C-alpha cells in the first residue's frame, strides 16, 4: 500500500506577502491523515540555527554513476516538474532555487526551533506520544556564532526541550572527543554511532543502536555517524576514534536487532544520500533510512528494494513525518510528508522561543551587528560556487594579499537577500568552525591541480562509498574546466589565473590563501575577521554568480 505523499498546500504566487500568508495556514502545513501504528519524526543538519532563516536550495547538484539524474540530483524547474510542484508556490520556494529572491519576499523566513517545537508537539498530541519517535540526524551543534562560542551548549540546551529519542553526529566531533562526551552525558537521549570505534582495540565508542517500543511495535534505531569525519575534518580533533562506512558492521547490527525481535529497523544516518542509496541496496533488513549530511530535501520517500529513504533537508527548514503501518515485522503501508516550517505561518512554541532567546542573549549585540550591506543575493549551495563563497574568496584574496583563494565546499550557511544588511550572524553562519585560521602559503600549479582533483573525486567518484558529500572547493582568482565523467586525476583542465588570463604553470609557485585546513597547527587570523574587514571596507557588496568553472560530462 503506497499512499500518495501529501505535500504542503500549494499556492499561486500573489506577489503580496500578506495575501500569501492568509492563504497558507498552520493547519494546512500540519494536515496529515495518519496511517498505521508508528510515526517517525526526523530533523537533521540544523547546523546551529535556532531562529528562522533564508536558505536557497542548490542550483546545481550533479549526480554521477547510478545517481545521475536521480533525486536528489535534480534541481530547479526539473525538480518542480518531477514532484508536480507548481512554480512560484510555497513548496517551490521551500524546495527549489527558482525565483528565490522574489519568493523569499513573499513567503518569508523558514525554520526556527520554536516552529519545529510547535510541529513536533502537535504531532505528538495528535498521534499520542507513545507512537512517536523523534530522531535527530546530527550536524546539530555546529554552524553558528552561538554554537561555536558555547561549544554546542546552546543547541544542546534547546534540543533537549524537543525530547529527541536519539541522535547521531558529524560536525559535533569538531569540538573534540572530551566535549562530545560531555555534551552527550548532559542529554537525555541516546547518541548512536555504530561506525565509530577506538583506534587501539576497535572497540565501539558509542551505542550502536537502541531498542524502542512505540505503538506496540518493537523498533530498533541504528546510528551511523558521518563516515569520513577524520578525513573531511581535522583528524587531530578526534585522534582516538576511527570512523568509516563499515558496511559489514551495519549488516551485523541489523541481523542482531532482528534476532532481538525488532519489527521495524531504522537507520539514523549521516552517510549522505547516495551512500545510503547504495547501502540500502546492499544491506537487507533496513526498513527506513533517515538520511542526512548532503542536505537534500525531497518531498517523497525514495524506495530502494524494501527500504524507504527519507531526506529531510537542513537548517531546520523542515520536519519530516513518516507514518508507518508495521504488521508482523514488516512495513505494510506508509505516508510521508516533508513539512516546511514557514516561520510566518507556524506559531512559535512559547517554551522553545524563551529558551532560544535565552541562548542567544549573551551574543545578541554581536549577532545583530551590521558590517555592511548586500545588493545581491548571497547564498552558498551549488556544486562549484555560491555567491557567499565568492565573497569569502574575495576577502581572502584582498585581506591576505594572495593570488589564489581556496574556500571549502561546505553545504551549510544561510542566505542573505538583496538589500539586507550583512550581520556578524550572517558571516558566522557561513564560517563558524573550530579550525577557522586563514593560512597564506605558496603552492605550485601542480599541487593546486592535485587539490582540485582530490576534492573533485570526493564529489564525483562514481562509487558513492568513495564520496565525502561536500561540494567542490571554491576558488578565488582561479578558473578551470571540469569533466565530471572522467576518472580520478583527469577531471580538471584549463586552469587559468583569472586576473591575467594566463594558464596555471605547474612548476610555478602561487600565493594561496585558504581556510578550514585539516592540518594541525595551521596559523592565521580567523576567517570571520577577514570577511568582516572586507565587507566593512566595501560597505555594500554586489556579487553576481561567476562563470569561472566550465562543466563538462554532466
Amino acid at each position, binding site marked *: 500500500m503506497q499512499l500518495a505523499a501529501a505535500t504542503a498546500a500549494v499556492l499561486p504566487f500573489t506577489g503580496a506577502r500578506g495575501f500569501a500568508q492568509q492563504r497558507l495556514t498552520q493547519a494546512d502545513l500540519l494536515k496529515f491523515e495518519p496511517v498505521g501504528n508508528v510515526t517517525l519524526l526526523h530533523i537533521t543538519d540544523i547546523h546551529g540555527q535556532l531562529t528562522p532563516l533564508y536558505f536557497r536550495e542548490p542550483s546545481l547538484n550533479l549526480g554521477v554513476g547510478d545517481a545521475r539524474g536521480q533525486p536528489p540530483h535534480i534541481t530547479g524547474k526539473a525538480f518542480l516538474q518531477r514532484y508536480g510542484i507548481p512554480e512560484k508556490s510555497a513548496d517551490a520556494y521551500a524546495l527549489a532555487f527558482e525565483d528565490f529572491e522574489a519568493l523569499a519576499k513573499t513567503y518569508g523566513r523558514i525554520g526556527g526551533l520554536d516552529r519545529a517545537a510547535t510541529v513536533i508537539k502537535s504531532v505528538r498530541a495528535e498521534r499520542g506520544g507513545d507512537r512517536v519517535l523523534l530522531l535527530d540526524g546530527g550536524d546539530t551543534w555546529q554552524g553558528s556564532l552561538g554554537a561555536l562560542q558555547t561549544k554546542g551548549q546552546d543547541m544542546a540546551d534547546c534540543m533537549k526541550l524537543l525530547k529527541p529519542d536519539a541522535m547521531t553526529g558529524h560536525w559535533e566531533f569538531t569540538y573534540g572527543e572530551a566535549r562530545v562526551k560531555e555534551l552527550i552525558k548532559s542529554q537525555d537521549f541516546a547518541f548512536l554511532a555504530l561506525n565509530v*570505534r577506538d583506534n587501539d*582495540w*576497535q*572497540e*565501539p565508542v558509542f551505542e550502536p543502536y537502541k531498542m524502542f517500543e512505540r505503538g506496540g511495535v518493537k523498533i530498533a534505531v541504528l546510528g551511523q555517524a*558521518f*563516515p*569520513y*569525519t*577524520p*578525513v*573531511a*575534518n581535522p*583528524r587531530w580533533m578526534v585522534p582516538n576514534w*576511527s*570512523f*568509516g*562506512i563499515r558496511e*559489514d558492521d551495519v549488516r551485523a547490527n541489523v541481523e542482531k536487532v532482528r534476532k532481538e525481535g525488532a519489527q521495524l529497523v531504522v537507520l539514523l544516518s549521516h552517510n*549522505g544520500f547516495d551512500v545510503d542509496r547504495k547501502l540500502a541496496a546492499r544491506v537487507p533488513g533496513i526498513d527506513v533510512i533517515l538520511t542526512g*549530511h*548532503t*542536505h537534500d530535501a525531497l518531498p517523497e520517500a525514495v524506495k530502494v528494494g524494501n527500504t524507504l529513504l527519507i531526506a529531510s533537508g537542513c537548517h531546520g527548514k523542515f520536519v519530516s513525518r513518516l507514518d508507518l503501518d508495521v504488521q508482523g515485522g514488516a512495513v505494510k503501508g506508509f505516508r510521508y510528508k516533508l513539512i516546511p516550517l514557514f516561520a510566518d505561518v507556524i506559531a512559535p512554541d512559547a517554551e522553545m522561543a524563551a529558551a532560544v532567546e535565552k541562548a542567544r542573549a549573551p551574543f545578541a549585540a554581536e549577532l545583530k551587528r551590521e558590517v555592511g550591506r548586500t545588493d545581491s543575493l548571497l547564498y552558498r549551495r551549488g556544486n562549484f560556487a555560491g555567491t557567499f563563497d565568492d565573497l569569502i574568496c574575495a576577502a581572502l584574496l584582498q585581506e591576505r594579499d594572495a593570488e589564489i583563494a581556496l574556500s*571549502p*565546499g*561546505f*553545504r*551549510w550557511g544561510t542566505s542573505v537577500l538583496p538589500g539586507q544588511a550583512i550581520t556578524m550572524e550572517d558571516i558566522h553562519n557561513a564560517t563558524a568552525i573550530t579550525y577557522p585560521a586563514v593560512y597564506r602559503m605558496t603552492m605550485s600549479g601542480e599541487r593546486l591541480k*592535485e*587539490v582540485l582533483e*582530490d*576534492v573533485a*573525486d*570526493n564529489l564525483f*567518484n562514481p*562509487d558513492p*562509498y*568513495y564520496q*565525502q*558529500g*561536500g*561540494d567542490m*572547493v571554491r576558488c578565488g582568482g582561479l578558473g578551470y574546466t571540469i569533466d565530471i565523467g572522467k576518472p*580520478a586525476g583527469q577531471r580538471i583542465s584549463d586552469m587559468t589565473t583569472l586576473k591575467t588570463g594566463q594558464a596555471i604553470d605547474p612548476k610555478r609557485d602561487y600565493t594561496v590563501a585558504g581556510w*578550514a*585546513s*585539516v592540518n594541525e597547527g595551521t596559523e592565521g587570523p580567523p576567517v570571520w575577521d577577514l570577511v568582516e574587514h572586507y565587507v566593512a571596507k566595501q560597505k555594500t557588496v554586489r556579487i553576481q554568480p561567476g562563470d569561472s568553472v566550465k562543466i563538462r560530462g554532466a
Partner: protein
Amino acid sequence: MTLMINRRQALAVGAGAVVLAGGFSVPAFAKNDSAELIEKFTGGKKPADGKIKLDLPEIAENGNTVPMTVSVESPMTEQSYVQEVLIVTDENPRAGVATFHFTPQSGVAEANVRIRLAQTQNVVAIAKMNDGSLFTTSKQVKVTIGGCGG
C-alpha cells in the same frame, strides 16, 4: 566483547609467522613489482574469486597506518587449511605488504594488521590452500589530501 575478539585475532596473527615488507626505499616512478610477486606466489596459476575477504576502509583516515583484516573462509584441519596469504598493492613503490603463514593450529585464517599506502590504489589478497588452490580479492583504498567535507 570486541576487545576480546580483537585480542583473539591478534593471537591468530601471532600463531602464524608474519613477514612484513619494509618501507618505501625504492623510487616511486617505475611500475611496481606486484605482477612478479603474484607470479612467484601463484606459479602462474590464475586464482579464483571468493572465499577470501579484505576488510579495508574505502577512504583511509591516515595512509600511513590503514587497518586491514584479511580472512579466508575455510576449515583449518590437517586435511584442508589455508597455508599462506599474500598481500600486495599495485601503486606502492614496493608492492609487497605481507605474507601470512598459517597452519591447522592457527584455528582460523584471519589476520589483522596496519598497512601503509602511499597513494590511492588497489590492495590485492591471494590465499593459497594446502591443496594448492588459490583464491583472490581486491579493494581500492583512496588516500586523500583531506578537507572540504560538507
